[in-house]
């Protein structure tokens, strides 16, 4: 799983979790993980960021775990993952609000159409993030 995949999956997960402001605290996970890994007192690969996410916002712990799985190797990558998570997450919230008002066909209503929108955005963002 690449950094991009991890950030995107975490953002997609937000569609199925409670929408609270503290959700965005989860964006700190890659930064915390990076700081922990680079610090001299890190005896093992404890996912500090994921633990932080589970403490500050238990409903969004899954997002935190997904972002921790990204394992950025430096500050640039950590910032990139955090930024991508926030940008895609905010976009998906807007998309979801519009989907709720649309007369989506019954078989696709709910999770399937959300996943379809996510997949479309994934393809759209893939080359953008390569840049």
């Amino acid at each position: 799983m690449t950094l991009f995949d991890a950030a995107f999956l975490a953002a997609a997960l937000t569609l199925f979790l409670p929408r609270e402001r503290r959700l965005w605290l989860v964006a700190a996970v890659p930064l915390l993980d990076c700081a922990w890994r680079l610090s001299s007192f890190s005896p093992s690969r404890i996912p500090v960021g994921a633990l932080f996410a589970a403490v500050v916002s238990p409903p969004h712990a899954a997002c935190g775990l997904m972002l921790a799985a990204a394992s950025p190797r430096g500050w640039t990558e950590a910032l990139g993952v955090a930024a991508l998570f926030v940008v895609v997450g905010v976009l998906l919230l807007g998309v979801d609000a519009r989907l709720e008002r649309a007369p989506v066909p019954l078989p696709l209503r709910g999770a399937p159409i959300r996943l379809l929108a996510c997949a479309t955005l994934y393809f759209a963002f893939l080359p953008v993030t390569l840049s």
Partner: protein
Amino acid sequence: MQAPFLHSGATTRHLMQDVLLALAPTCLASVARHGSSALLLLVATGVSACLVNGLLTRRATPDGSVLITATVAALMLPAGGPWWLGVVAGAVAIVVGRWAFGGLGYNLFNPAALSRAWLMAIFPAEMFTWGPRFVDGVSQASPLFKPGPATAAPSLELLWGGWSCTLAEAAPWTVVLGGGYLVARRVADWRIPLTYLLTTATMAALLEPGARMAGHPSWVGTDPLRHVVVGGTLMGAFFLMTDPVTAPFTPLGRVLGTSLAATLAMLIRFHTHLPDGTALAVLVANASAPLLDRWALRLRAETGWRTRP
């Protein structure tokens, strides 16, 4: 007489007719340039879209919007591509781009841009196989082809066309002609093409250093005007971003969304392995439309600042 009784006379049917009329010169030019293969792609996409739409909506006669979607989707297919690519493009545009999201008026993403993005992901070999295979003495490989032609073509020659890339690039001036017609008829908001083209030129000037361009010949990056007339820029400015359903409905939102799309398209063009990324950039801009509209409305409520409709 009060507002509910005033009617400009413009109906959805008239709007559709105007858009189809605006697309006609580009279709004719692509057939004139590429011959039967372009005609086959246009017909295959149209027939596929109409059939699929008929099956899904149980209506025998398709409305104009289906034909518009199919035509725009076909014009973004590679010249000389196989006919079945048109069939898939038409079906994806209608099924995934329109029906799945609630049908006409509710689609979140521009169906033609979505169709191209999906085809790029599923059939990359077919979507990006232009160039030597189609160089026939009349058409040349697109200047955006990586690696592209070594010698620079004058900007005006680029506008005249003859590039073997997508069908719409057969004659870019016809896209300008059709787009100008839409703007003159007020079917398209003039802010959108203007912002798109200005942002593209600005980004081309800012991103100019040749060393940062991945795979392009260096001459492509030397003139912002070239970037305005090549690739999917003109189609994006006049036919993709002006879609009233997927574009933001506030003027400020439209300007911001269009700038975002043009910026992303140029970043993709300059910094990735893809020769052009207009369709992908349009999809990201479409997804940001609800957010941009919310910001624009909040700004209007808080400051009272508003633009002319």
